[in-house]
């Protein structure tokens, strides 16, 4: 199971994401995007394995190397679109992002609580769909292979995924392994549209799945590094884990 959508979610916590698009080879020479996306599911565990997973907890670290800042990260997700991620940075505090399926929100000690709306919410809903890799046909209106690009010296198929609402995302899949090597996204945030590139790596086996354990992200002139240390599939998650925090409830009631 690849956690690319989860990773994209975490990028939003840091306030970033990116996009890119470049001409590629003639489409007729390339495999169909559908084939590439389905292959990714197969090489990371297979449809049957994905279908058996209904919730997940990931934990690890989140780092801003240029600033010497390193925090702990834990992320809870469950079907169909429940999500709660928490990153704690020494000297800053707890940064949170989540959704209870209806309200998508962020909260951090610097800017305070915030309810995501409009394009920002649309992207959050897309990002938080559990097993989004498996359900790409429901999430994206069109998918298209547009070329081949080298990522870290390896040729990758470039696949543009366009949702019914919101901006397209671009994935780069390793030609040989079928694994995702790069995601380019334009994050919709209150700060504006922010382009970001993310590079999953260090794919290793976790249970029935092959999971990326590192994700390097670059955006807005800064670099971030997510390191996954633990992945649990179908864990017990407290029922109230996805409830809205009090500050968010207060904002909802204030509207």
């Amino acid at each position: 199971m690849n956690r690319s959508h989860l990773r994209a979610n975490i990028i939003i916590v840091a306030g970033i994401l990116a996009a890119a698009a470049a001409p590629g080879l003639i489409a007729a020479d390339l495999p169909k995007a559908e084939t590439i996306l389905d292959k990714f599911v197969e090489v990371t565990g297979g449809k049957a394995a994905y279908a058996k997973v209904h919730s997940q907890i990931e934990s690890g670290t989140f780092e801003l190397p240029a600033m010497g800042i390193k925090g702990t990260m834990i992320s809870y997700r469950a079907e169909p679109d429940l999500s709660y991620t928490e990153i704690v940075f020494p000297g800053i505090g707890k940064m949170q992002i989540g959704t209870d399926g209806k309200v998508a929100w962020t909260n951090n000690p610097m800017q305070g609580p915030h309810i995501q709306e409009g394009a920002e919410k649309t992207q959050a809903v897309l990002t938080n769909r559990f097993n989004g890799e498996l359900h790409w046909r429901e999430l994206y209106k069109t998918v298209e292979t547009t070329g081949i690009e080298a990522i870290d010296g390896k040729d990758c198929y470039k696949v543009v995924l366009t949702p019914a609402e919101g901006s397209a995302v671009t994935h780069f899949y390793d030609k040989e392994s079928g694994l995702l090597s790069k995601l380019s996204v334009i994050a919709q945030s209150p700060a504006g549209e922010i382009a970001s590139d993310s590079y999953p790596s260090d794919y290793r086996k976790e249970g029935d799945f092959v999971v990326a354990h590192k994700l390097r992200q670059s955006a807005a002139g800064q670099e971030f590094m997510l390191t996954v240390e633990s992945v649990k599939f179908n864990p017990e998650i407290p029922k109230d884990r996805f409830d809205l925090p009090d500050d968010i409830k207060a904002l909802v009631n204030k509207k």
Partner: protein
Amino acid sequence: MPFRLAALVLLLAGAAPSPAQPALTPAQRQLNIDSFEMVWQTVRDKHWDPKLGGLDWQAIHDELRPKVEAAATTADARAVMSDMLARLKQTHFGIVPGDAYSEMNSSSDGDDSGPGDAGPGLDTRVIDNHVLVTSITPDSPAAAAGVKPGWEILRIRGKEIGPAIAKIRDSLSSQTTLLDLLLHSAVSERLSGEAGKTVEIQFLDGRNKKVNLKIARIRPRGQVAQLGNLPPLHFWVETQTLKPNIAYVHFNLFFEPDSLNTAFQQAIRTCGNCDGFIIDLRGNPGGIGGLATGVAGWFTDKKDQRLGTMFLRGASMKFVVFPRPETFSGPLAILTDGCSASTSEILAGGMKDLGRARVFGTHTAGAALPSLFTRLPNGDGFQYAIANYISEGGQPLEGFGLTPDQEVKLTRHQLLEGQDPVIDAAVTWIEKQKK
């Protein structure tokens, strides 16, 4: 979350140890060269303006690289790198000596002060070429020694301070907005030293009589705040209710988000029906940039408001304010002075531009670029700006600063009388709003 601490590099850059340094080993020389290359490449690759304002950056590299290769000491190599950064003519680019970066060592200036950031417990401003005490830390050695606001400092460690002030003033362009900040740093550095050791200060007291005091130094006020590569800093925040019925929050840095926001939350809860609110940013050199919007969120219910926009290489980020669940909607006054820099200017400038606050005091430092700190291969610290910033009103703060709505200067007479004319002006304005 870029940091905005204009004063920090200025402060630390002057804290380099002065003793002669031993000759470099080949390995140390290489580390200095590697550091030079890292600084040069970082500016080339990360500066928000790929054209670097028209500088021929490669030519600057080719000119200075032989000098860093020939540098006999790390201090010499540092000077070459500082020269390179100075060509940008922008704040928030600087090299901090490794030991100062790590230990916050201060120059002992030949006496027994020793290294350290401890002080006698007083704050100063240079006003009309006079170094005036503007506040005394309660229960500090300065308070115990009877020092009062309004006293003038004539000598520190036996040396007259006046000539140093004049030298700094004369060396700077008359157009610079950084003068107050640099003069304040120069005085603070001379007062600083190792905790427990004394500093000899000659004052001119309230009766114009010279008073010589030896005052012990104590650790800076507040809790130690540590964030990433930044050296440890001391953070404090104070809240009080001023008569008549006005909330007042004063803090020295935009740090420790939880503590700062708790202070604002409590101030608003205890003073929800107050006639007005005063945020005192005098002497505040900045900190975590995002906290400017976080503080602003306590004072507006309007959505989609922003303080300004940060321009990065190939991207821009709006400094959007998220209204808090509880907000204060009454008159808001923000106090600034020449030592208010960076995040302070972003908050004050943005709130002024939005028409949400009236600013009182004196012109700010004009040092508002968001920057990062990183360590160089030779152990020195390297601060570099990654973005430009334009306040919501369309004006850059960098190099210009913020002009208050109502300019109010401190005077020795008023300080001696126990008055704070800046707070008084804000209170008078708030009272008028009530009517």
